[in-house]
């Protein structure tokens, strides 16, 4: 197997995740797209790990998974809060940052 097949797969998933983050209006779906990005990173970490014959990448892949779990927890809590206040989780309506 080539290392590149995994890396290209990771790159593809990453870019799809980016596309999803940018185009989705629903906040929950934006979070899902972010999960795509995080998974692509993990694939990269493990591919390099195997290429170099080390185990450090496994450790960091685990850390990434843990961070992702934390991120989803907090992210969904925020989405719920927004929903409770606005009855709507469309990110386009959250434009308080308008300059």
């Amino acid at each position: 197997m080539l290392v590149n097949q995994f890396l290209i797969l990771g790159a593809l998933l990453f870019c799809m995740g980016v596309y999803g983050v940018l185009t989705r209006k629903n906040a929950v779906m934006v979070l899902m797209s972010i999960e795509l990005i995080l998974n692509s990173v993990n694939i990269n970490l493990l591919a390099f790990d195997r290429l170099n014959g080390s185990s450090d990448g496994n450790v960091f892949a685990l850390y990434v998974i843990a961070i992702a779990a934390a991120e989803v927890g907090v992210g969904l809590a925020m989405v719920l809060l927004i929903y409770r206040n606005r009855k709507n989780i469309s990110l386009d309506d959250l434009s308080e940052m308008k300059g």
Partner: protein
Amino acid sequence: MFAEETAAVADAAGWFLTHAWLIPVIPAAAFFVIILFGKKMPRGGSEIGIASMVAALVIASGAAYQWIDRVANSEEATAVIRTKTWWSSGGIKFAIGEQIDGLAIMALLLVAFISTLVQIYSTEYVRGDRRYTHFFASITLFSAGMLTMVLAPNMVQFILGWEIMGLCSFLLIGHWWEEEANARAALKAFFTVRTGDMGLLVGTAMLLAIFGTLDIGGEHGINVMAANGEFSSKNMLMWAAVALFIAAIGKSGQFPLHTWLPDAMAGPTPVSSLLHSSTMVVAGVFLVARIYPVFHTGLDINIAGNHVNLIAVIGGITIIIAAALAFVQNDIKKVLAYSTVSQLGYMMMGLGVGAWMPAVFHIFTHAFFKCCLFLCAGSIAHTGSHHSFDMKDDMGGLRKKMPVTFIAWMVSTLALCGLPFFSGFFSKDEIIDSAKHNNYTVFFVVGLVGAAMTAAYMTRATYLTFFGKPRGGAAHFVEGHEDHSHDEAADEIHHDVDGLDTHAHVAHDDHAPLHHGKPLPFAPSDSSWQITVPLIILGTLAFVSGYLNAAPFGWHKFETWLESSVGLPIGEGGVPEAAAFHWINAVPSILLVATGFAISLFLCVQVYGKETSPFKGLTQRNALLGAGHRFLVNKYYLDALYEGVIVKAIAHPIAKAAYWTNQNILDGVVNAVGIGGRRTGLWVYKNIDQRVVDGAVNGSGATARGAGGALQPVQSGKVSMYGALLFGAAAVGALVLVLVNS
């Protein structure tokens, strides 16, 4: 985690040298004591702060003594390095400890000494403040941060100290956060410095990638490896140096990121004084000096035929821009702030042209006189001008009422201007001289112009503050002792008419401060001993400190002590040797300083000196001396119009016309210099500083609006839009890097 001691001291060093790590530890411990128990102490925790600083000072002095001894007794004094593993991650160990060499000792001594004086001064200055204890806690931790940074043996500890200072400066600048302007100034300082801090993190990471270690000194440290060319990619070293220099720009208030420094005046004056003399702003310069080989090699300093480099350019621009801005400030602290920015420009420029020793020596001398100047400003505001820093409205004629402050101010000002035999002369002139000697002619000229401008704006500030007639806050208490009560209401009423009737009270000036043998509340007089003693000490040092490295007399003590800290060979292939001193080389700078002084004094007397001339005197003189004199007199009181002091009386078209004729024909030459300089300053202030730089710093929002709303949709406030920009910019950036490297 706190593992065994890893590096033993190479050879027997004295107790103070091996225990110099106590210097930051004591104030850091004192911080916790003050925070926890300070409120219950009889003096609100200030005694702990002062005691800790004195202890630090004692150890630093001992270390300095032993270091001098070490230098004298050995051929090549090596740094005393002691470290312990602080933490390790992924097989890389990060140590904490001390690296004591000449540079560290110099900075330790400076910081401990000035912090001690500033704290003593503060006990009087912030007495009765509602957050008195917190003030002393923050200022003690602030000093601890700087001390941690200067004895850092590696970049990690350096960042630690750096960030502690960043936090404390935020707390101290925003000490009176109830006023929104102060809170905003604190935030601005924090964010601006933070922008630069990104450079520090990136640069440090790059150093780790290049050298595989973050140790600064030692045989396998960054400095040695950079100096010996033990790295694979010169290109990467260059970018690391640029990134680190961005950090220095942010912290030391260099040109694009200097806007936070004048705003930082919102803090109490002792804070400004500490911030601007030995800590905080010097940190950036210290960073460059500490890992000088990285910059020297990375940015090709002192390579033959290379007349420009990033550090010198930024330093040079800063000197001129900041000095021009100092002309148009009415707030005495802001004049000093821009002066600091300008002087930091000198230090940077010195480092940029390979004049390491003069630049570091300028850190040393500048700390004393700038600290003294700020404390003088504080002293004036405290007892002279009713807590106002406005030179034009609330000061003037204070020289007789505040003799100690006046003398300390004068000595420091002369040192700042670089008058021969004052400390600034020995350091600043060395920098200018080295620029010429090392073939950086452009920066030699910049240095000379800067020196003349320094002399001019300091003359203006001195004149406004100490000469002329008392105005506003400095004046209206004088009348009080005659027939008014001193309650605030009365003061307020009289405030408005001061501009007109101060003349009547001049006659009482000499005995005015005394009221039944006691000073009146707030009557201009010298402050109590807590304030004057530091002023006297610092004023003395402002004069004396220069003699540690007085080239004209062949005294090079300072140089001998610090030689080993440069990290580069002196002479061929390293830092050029210092030029031999000839008085003839100092002539241009002395002449320019004198010119700046003379022009400024002349203009000051013309513009401000006659400001309070009463109108009856004017008409009398007109009648007496005739038409020839009328132009001159008219000019005086129309200049006052320009200053907006007595608008109504002279809003007269004929006078205006006469003024302009007079202005353009008779005084053409003089005024071209004066007004031109002033206009340039104002223009630079309004357009470059306020619009371009501030605008850029404040983010792209303002720029987009300025560009006619073409980019307005970008600031849609929609998260996805920002995301698109972020990723798009990252992609384009990556593309550029790929194209450049392939």
